[in-house]
């Protein structure tokens, strides 16, 4: 823990300016993750800029039939919004499967996707972690990998000492639903406003595991837009975890699907708990598109998606179980969404 300055500017523009001016500044929204990191020494900012009362706390209708969610809308409020419950059940379900009632009451729409991995080594400053301390190595290789990635990781066992190694997963449930819904992220930064497709917001570790997203320093999420879904689309979120509540996903599935004449007409799938980012399952989507809506098709689609999956060995047997688990969870989710299949 180290002292930091705290600012509560009068506008979003001022907040962006304040953070941009201080290289070691961070935005504070609900604080459910950042405050822990301040205590643990994982985050050591010079300046904390509070935006909780600056960004919008409204859910509004968009002209195209979609909705815009202000960045300060809490997870509880969003899950309770009638439009979300009726049109985007996958999102309502994902929100309600996350954390606890108390946490959802303060966690925000802008903050939730920017929460950081719960990798136990990332959260422990006495261990090596490329994400927390670039170049220090990765303690998760051969360690406690139960909550770690199987997708978007190298085909061979990663090198614990290499600076690019990171097998962490993104922990958010909401983000998995947003990835499946083709949400758009409204961002304000020092260079002005821009829109980032939600599926492009998070990144794979690449050569810099310390960066979770494509946002530049000083860029702030102001809202998240949900496009309208075609008629006849059904959606659901299935989270599988070790404990019935208040636990991160071992694997999770967000599925949005429409069936016409027994064929898969529209399908969007995102997976959680399996990669450094909410994992849009494009291979599975391609394999399903136009195919008969049957369990056999679903199995084949999952197999296509997981062909490149790489289990991480580790304590208590590693995380190889995620591959059969994900297969079962995804097939069951699609099956339950398409009872006519």
């Amino acid at each position: 823990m180290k002292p930091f300055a705290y600012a509560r500017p009068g506008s979003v523009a001022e907040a962006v300016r304040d953070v941009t001016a201080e290289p070691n500044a961070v935005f504070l929204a609900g604080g459910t993750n950042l405050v822990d990191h301040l205590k643990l020494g994982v985050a050591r900012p010079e300046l904390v800029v509070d935006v909780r009362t600056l960004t919008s706390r409204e859910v509004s209708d968009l002209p195209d039939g979609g909705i815009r969610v202000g960045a300060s809308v809490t997870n509880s409020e969003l899950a309770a919004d009638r439009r979300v419950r009726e049109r985007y059940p996958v999102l309502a379900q994902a929100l309600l499967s996350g954390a606890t009632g108390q946490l959802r009451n303060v966690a925000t729409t802008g903050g939730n996707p920017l929460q950081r991995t719960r990798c136990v080594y990332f959260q422990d400053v006495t261990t090596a972690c490329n994400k927390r301390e670039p170049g220090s190595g990765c303690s998760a290789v051969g360690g406690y990998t139960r909550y770690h990635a199987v997708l978007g990781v190298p085909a061979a066992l990663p090198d614990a000492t290499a600076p690019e190694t990171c097998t962490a997963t993104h922990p958010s449930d909401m983000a998995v639903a947003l990835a499946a819904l083709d949400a758009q992220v409204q961002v304000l930064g020092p260079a002005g406003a821009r829109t980032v497709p939600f599926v492009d917001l998070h990144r794979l570790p690449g050569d810099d595991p310390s960066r979770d997203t494509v946002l530049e320093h000083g860029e702030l999420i102001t809202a998240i837009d949900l496009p309208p879904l075609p008629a006849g689309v059904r959606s659901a979120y299935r989270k599988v975890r070790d404990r019935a509540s208040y636990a991160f996903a071992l694997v999770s599935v967000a599925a949005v699907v429409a069936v016409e004449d027994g064929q898969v007409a529209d399908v969007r799938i995102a997976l959680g708990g399996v990669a450094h980012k909410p994992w849009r399952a494009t291979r599975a989507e391609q394999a399903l598109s136009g195919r008969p809506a049957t369990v056999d098709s679903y199995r084949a689609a999952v197999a296509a998606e997981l062909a490149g999956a790489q289990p991480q060995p580790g304590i208590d047997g590693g995380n190889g179980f995620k591959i059969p688990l994900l297969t079962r969870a995804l097939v069951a989710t699609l099956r339950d969404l398409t009872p006519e299949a």
Partner: protein
Amino acid sequence: MTDLLEPRAIGRDLVRRDGVAKVRGTATYAYETPVDRPAYAFPVQATVARGRVTAMDTTAAEALDGVLVVLTPFTAERLASTEDREYAVLQSDEVAFRGQLVGVVVAETSELARQAADSVVVTYDERPHDTELSVDRDDLYRPDALGDGAESDTSEGDVAAAMAAAEVTLEHTYSTAMYHNNPLEPHATTALWDGGQLVLWDSTQGVHPDRAAVCEVFGLAEDQVRVVCPYVGGGFGAKGEPHANVMLATMAARAVPGRPVKLALTRQQMFTLAGYRTPTIQQVQLAADHRGRLQAIAIDVVEQTSRVKEFAEQTGVPTRMMYASPNRRTTHRLAALDVPVNSWMRAPGECPGMFGPEVALDELAETLGIDPIQLRIRNEPEVDPETGKPWSSRHLVECLREGAQRFGWADRPPPRHRDGDWLVGTGVASSVYPTQRMAQSTAIVRYEDGRYVAEIGAADLGTGTWTTLPQIAADALGVPVEDVEVRIGDTRYPIASVAGGSSGMNTWGSAVVEAARTFREKFGRDPADGDEAENSVDQAAQDEDHAPYAFGAQFAEVRVHADTGELRVPRLLGVFAAGRIINPRTARSQFVGGMTMGLSMALHENSVWDDRIGQVANHDLAEYHITVNADVGDVQAHWLDEHDPYVNAMGTKGIGEIGIVGTAAAVVNAVHRATGVRVRHLPVTLDKLLADLP
């Protein structure tokens, strides 16, 4: 035999006397003690698992405005006794486990203390560490005695010969994980050293044992030290003996005389400094005839201890007395490792030790095609197999039968029964816990302002002592409970034993009864204001001719999701025969709490040991899962109206621990019934079931 107190207040469903204060937040816990100008301490912990501290640079810490003192192994006072190496804080440059205390900062605010502690630079001469428990180690050793003082190994008859000759045999290895007690209230102390007097407001399961340890370590006389602890936010054994944090808080306070110093461990620190339950590896052998009568039972236990201080969990002990068998063996072997100090956790010995054997019995029942309840009944011993003494009372069979009836055991679904998306199974296991009374406790009874006051340095861990001890005192004095006030949790009151081994009520209650009787003998029924009498547990009158135990039966219904292997427990039901129940309300809470902790052990709790760095990887409550409400549906605890004239004047057997014993086995047995998968290594997580799901 004892004449039991006639129960008038005893047995009443009285609400907690301290409940209102707790709900309103006015009950002060150790860290919250209001004191003038408190200072705050924060520990510095070793980041290597073995080695030597070669240097500590405290310059940056000491330069911070508001830092009062920084203590290191090179600057700390020398303690009067370093015999107990867990307590010998900052006495040596040796690092014996990762997380060991190597320094402490005292500062004007808690934030500053933490910042300063972070800025202390420690240089180590790191050496290879050895922290991996395994049955294959060549340095396993037999401890001189187990944690409860019992002998390490026992042998009766010839197990090997019985195994060779028996109609049916079974031999499997079972294991329980490493568990951390994790009371909600962290280990916390407010310490004040002033004018040669020390006051500790400490979260402890026993103010007198706490004081004795501190006096020994610091070379203080008992009249120099006062320990105060009216309320404890859970202990589960982790506050039974003081841990190093108490010595560190005391040392910090002595470094800033006149300033009260507050020290509370963080949740992460509790994973290295506050004790834990060793992982256990249990090799179990059973031999039986075709009717299920045991011909041999054996348990060979391998577990760990820290090199700093030996603690040998008495895991094999329940196998010595639970069932009848002509041949029997129990052994314990320890690996001494570079790990934190393990210690008491709710039902040390019985809790892990009733896992392997109770699952093995279920496996034997399946092999023989005998109902698992019937199998246990067929092996009911007439006398205690360990001592040959008659039981003070043993109603295991009645618990099993009563539980079976309440649970609907006879209508249990067939193996691998499917209900929609869920596979459903039920399981049963036995519970046991020895009835113990400590040798030393004293109470004073006084007539004061028209009421009776009983004083004893007893503890209330949230268990109900503030409420239940008055019930005992009232019946011992023959007055309404409303006319009795009890004062506990302070060394200013007469000496009391630790709240451990489910012995609290048995011991303190006995002292209160003796004091009440003495009071009545001296002052009759019409005392004058200020009349008082003191008396102690009458150890000489303790029955030695019977084997005193509480027994129970645990039933579980488990549902396993056919797609994902997710586990839910819609029903948990326990029936206990644990002597007389003082207060049904607080007792139910104890039983249900124990069963919940047992369920947690079955499904979730697991301190994941990372041997590469020598620490628990998942060292916080986000990652170390404890069962939540959503995991379980209906949890019921029932008890038999058991009358035991041999245990003590109240007829109590102690109920703090038995609830956790056997639960995990019942759950594992239910999982097997539901899925066909026998999980012998806890916890039962979905990945262990996936391969065998439909």
